[in-house]
């Protein structure tokens, strides 16, 4: 069943890794050759039937794919508009979509003969997924995590350690995801001959934005086939949260050519769109270069990157994936934001009306869908990518609701 596979090679950027004016490879000299080597290895792997078969087998038997497409009838009825569909990435092994990419890249690392893996993590879901993939494949795993994130996602820190990973605390900057990426890149540049950098989102230098999107494209490919099979037509709109943007790119990918389907990305509005209080790059940012790629970033007039805030660690980041910037420029996708308060309300609503605890990241998509649905016709289909489950967030939600 080819529809339940990642999509490879269908929408490549140009040879230098550009999506329009975004993307590229803005890396220190030492990383240029390794990034070229990685690109060549990835292009060979995605063409290799054996690699694809191995990945497909793991996605099915280990991750539990395909994840269901579920109609949220009670929520739809209470909103009184579009029929709400949930793509249940929260039911994937380890509790979020991150495992799709972590497994793909860990297989690639093993193929390249790199047994030492470094990764960054914000909410901890990518760290847990990487630690899981490394345990499965017998790789040595080191995860960099901001001290602030280690506090608010302490459960995931413990999970990574249980899985045999070393979690390294990062105390620079705001001590969140951006600082963890800086530190992971410093490790990579130092140990580049033995080490594979397993980046968790559609960020960083080419080929990462392409590779991560392709490993995540299984989400949209499944959802499109499931929607046609279960409802006889395509969704009218798709809503996904956007931190770096991997779950959103993963579900958008299969629908880019279906221009009748609106693609909506939801960024973190935090405490409101004021410098330092949010992570809505398209609302408060501008084009710039950060951590290997040219995209939209939150920065001051002098080009220094601004601090960000979101109740959700996974969305608390100053840059957005370059392909999102491009899809927005050409008018194919639209982007909006949801603040902390509304994200919490979205979380509670899905919990009470559907019996599902969404991750705080995914709660942003839920909250925006709750806004959108009442204005849509009753027979229309509104698909939410439920990128992860909220078990990891219950302590911080308890805190926030106090």
């Amino acid at each position, binding site marked *: 069943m080819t529809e339940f596979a990642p999509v490879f090679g269908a929408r490549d950027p140009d040879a230098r890794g550009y999506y329009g004016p975004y993307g590229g490879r803005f890396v220190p*000299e030492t990383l*240029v*050759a390794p990034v070229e080597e990685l690109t060549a290895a990835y292009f060979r792997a995605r063409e290799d039937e054996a690699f694809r078969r191995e990945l497909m087998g793991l996605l099915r038997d280990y991750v539990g794919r395909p994840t269901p497409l579920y109609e949220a009838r009670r929520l739809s009825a209470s909103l009184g508009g579009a029929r709400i569909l949930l793509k249940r990435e929260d039911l994937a092994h380890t509790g979020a979509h991150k495992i799709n990419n972590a497994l793909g890249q860990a297989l690639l690392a093993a193929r390249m003969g790199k047994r030492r893996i470094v990764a960054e993590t914000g909410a901890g879901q990518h760290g847990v997924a990487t630690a899981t993939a490394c345990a499965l494949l017998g790789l040595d795993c080191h995860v960099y995590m901001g001290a602030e994130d280690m506090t608010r996602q302490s459960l995931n820190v413990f999970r990574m350690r249980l899985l045999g990973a070393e979690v390294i605390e990062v105390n620079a900057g705001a001590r969140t995801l951006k600082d963890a990426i*800086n530190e992971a890149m*410093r490790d990579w*540049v130092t140990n580049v001959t033995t080490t594979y950098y397993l980046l968790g989102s559609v960020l960083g230098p080419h080929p990462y934005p392409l590779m991560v999107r392709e490993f995540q494209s299984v989400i949209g490919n499944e959802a499109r086939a499931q929607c046609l099979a279960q409802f006889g037509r395509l969704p009218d709109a798709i809503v996904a949260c956007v931190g770096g943007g991997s779950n959103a790119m993963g579900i958008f990918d299969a629908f880019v050519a279906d221009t009748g389907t609106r693609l909506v990305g939801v960024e973190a509005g935090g405490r409101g769109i004021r410098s330092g209080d949010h992570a809505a790059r398209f609302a408060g940012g501008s084009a710039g270069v*950060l951590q*290997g790629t040219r995209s939209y970033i939150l920065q001051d007039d*002098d080009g*220094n990157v601004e601090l960000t805030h979101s109740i959700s660690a996974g969305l608390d980041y100053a840059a957005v994936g370059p392909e999102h910037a491009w899809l927005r420029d050409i008018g194919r996708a639209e982007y909006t934001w949801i603040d902390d308060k509304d994200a919490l309300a979205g979380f509670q609503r899905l919990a009470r009306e559907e019996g599902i605890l969404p991750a705080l990241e995914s709660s942003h998509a839920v909250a925006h869908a709750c806004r959108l649905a009442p204005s849509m016709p009753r027979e229309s289909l509104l698909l939410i990518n439920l990128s992860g489950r909220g078990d990891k967030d219950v302590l911080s939600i308890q805190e926030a609701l106090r």
Partner: protein
Amino acid sequence: MARIADAFAAVQASGRPGLVAYVTAGDPNLDRSAEILMTLGANGADVLEVGVPFSDPLADGPVIQRASERALKSGTTLRKTLEMIRRRRPQIAAPIVLFTYANPIVRMGEAAFACAAADAGIDGVLVLDLPVEEAGSFRQRLVDADMDPIFLLSPTTTDERIRQSAELGRGFLYVISRLGVTGARDRVAADAEPLVRRIRAHSDLPLALGFGISRPEHVVEIGRWADAAVVGSALVNVIAEHGASSDLIDRVGAYTRWLKGLS
């Protein structure tokens, strides 16, 4: 105006190893930086490298990260750095190379930057995260404004890319002596000399070797097979330790003479 080429010609004529000295602008503040630059030049540094502080210095080790934080805290920006250099340029004879990450320049705009940097008397620009493949239009702007685009070469750089950088670079080539981030080390990397020889096969440009250089013995050793040694973190450490002290400038001067073998 070819201050960088002249400086390397003078080094070669002197028979002494060349010294490139790096400091972060605005650490501890821009007024002090101006005095530090004058002192470096007066005490034997052949080329001055001025680092522009940036919020995310991912190619730097802890010493320069901290310097960058102190400089940002003191209100230093790319514009203010250029303005400081413009005002003090007549008092400094040595060539000045700006050492920066890409984003402050992207934010300012390549054209506006090239204009302001040339006006400030900058001789060369080195952008840490702008490899030759991404440098096309920016390199041309520098050349048009009579400034030298300086590229980095690393142990991982392929021969093909060494050729490319040698062809597009001017002034000198900056050779990264080891894998990793900036930071002082006890010894010169063993692979550095073969790397320099590999680059020599493709280029006649002067070669300055950096990353991990901290002692006069290193400078002498490097001088035997390269044109200059770059000292950054070790010098920044002196500034970190004595930044608030009244004898900072004397200490920087003494340290520079020690590195250059003049004391």
